[in-house]
């Protein structure tokens, strides 16, 4: 799974680069900015990508990613080792995204916003051949057709390579629920993409 441009790495502490997340967390909790920066650099891109695939909007994704790390910084002491740090961030990002989408839905704009999401937004940053560009738009539209629950499941399992159990923990639901959402999402994606091919 690729992103368009590799984000610049902000200055962190080189000495922390080889330190595992689990060992950086106590340092960050104790107030080490370097340790926290290392964690940030390690996971920001993934969290942003995850947020983007849920929101399908660059600005929203950046906001969600930012809110996720602010929340993580505030709640670092409550981090438990039951999940990986990255999956913990996914959980926070999921909740932040849901909040945002809920607010959007309250304004009765979610569906229309997603349906009318200009597919070229994601592609402005990359240069693709015409065929690929067309395919990009098709996938973007297909993803936009999914419900939020289905997009969460697809993103975690297909893009972040989590297994169903891990995705269930991130999403706070049963493993069977994730499986069912994936099944529904794949059915819908196949239908949409097949229709696009025939066009």
């Amino acid at each position, binding site marked *: *799974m*690729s*992103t*368009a*441009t*590799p*984000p*610049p790495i*902000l200055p962190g502490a080189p000495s922390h680069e080889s330190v595992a997340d689990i060992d950086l967390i106590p340092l*960050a*909790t*104790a*107030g080490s*900015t370097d340790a*926290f*920066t290392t964690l*940030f650099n390690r996971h*920001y*891109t993934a969290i*942003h*990508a995850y947020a*983007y*695939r849920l929101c399908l909007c*660059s600005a929203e*994704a*950046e906001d969600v*990613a*930012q809110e996720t*790390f*602010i929340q*993580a*910084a*505030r*709640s*670092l*002491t409550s981090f438990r080792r039951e999940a990986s740090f990255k999956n913990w961030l996914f959980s926070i990002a999921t909740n932040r995204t849901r909040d945002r989408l809920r607010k959007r839905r309250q304004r009765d704009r979610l569906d229309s916003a997603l349906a009318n999401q200009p597919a070229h*937004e*994601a*592609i*402005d*940053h*990359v240069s*693709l051949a015409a065929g*690929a560009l067309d*395919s*990009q738009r*098709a*996938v*973007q539209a297909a*993803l936009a057709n999914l419900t939020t629950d289905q997009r969460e499941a*697809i993103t975690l399992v*297909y*893009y972040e390579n989590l297994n169903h159990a891990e995705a269930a923990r991130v999403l706070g639901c049963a493993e069977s629920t994730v499986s069912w959402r994936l099944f529904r999402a*794949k059915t819908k*994606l*196949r239908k949409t*993409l*097949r229709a696009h091919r025939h066009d």
Partner: protein
Amino acid sequence: MTDHDLRHSLAAHQIPGPSAQARERALHRATIALANSTHTTSTDTRRRSLGIGFALSTLTATAAIILCAWFALRPAPVQTATATTSPTGGDLLAKTGLLFPGQLNAIVIQDGETRLDLSPTATLPAPDDQAVLVELTRNGHTLRVLGYSGRSVSIEFDGTELRFVPLLTATGDILLSGDNFIWSKAEPAKIAGWNVSTQTLEVRL
């Protein structure tokens, strides 16, 4: 479309990376949040420590007051001690007897209250007297009498006085001898409506 095709299509979906400004802004704000959180946490810890210290001091002071009050207001040791059917009842009787040489006839525990049955004048101590427990129950009330074989016991209940002398027989049984009754295990008649049980007490002092 196979699952492989679907994965391939999804994998081809590229997304725009975050802008450098957004990334820098996110790190900056998160770092501030971390600093505030760390500060808050240490402040909370200090407050918690102070709180715990205050709570401990209060607890200690309260415990000291309660202990002082208990020592000041408690009844005589014999009265606070709980007589039970355990062997320590005999010890309690013996210890209390040391406080009232030759005077202690019995310790009577009535519905949780303890009373001493004392002779007005000291009599010759009889160290060989067997300590006994007599338990009387009636209508949910319980009287426990820690006494000695051969020493008269007087109990008052609801304005009625009951007097008897527990007597240890040669076979180890206990008789209760009253003005107008004799009670024994073999003939466990009620005494003024009381159910009676007896046993000897061990004195280990």
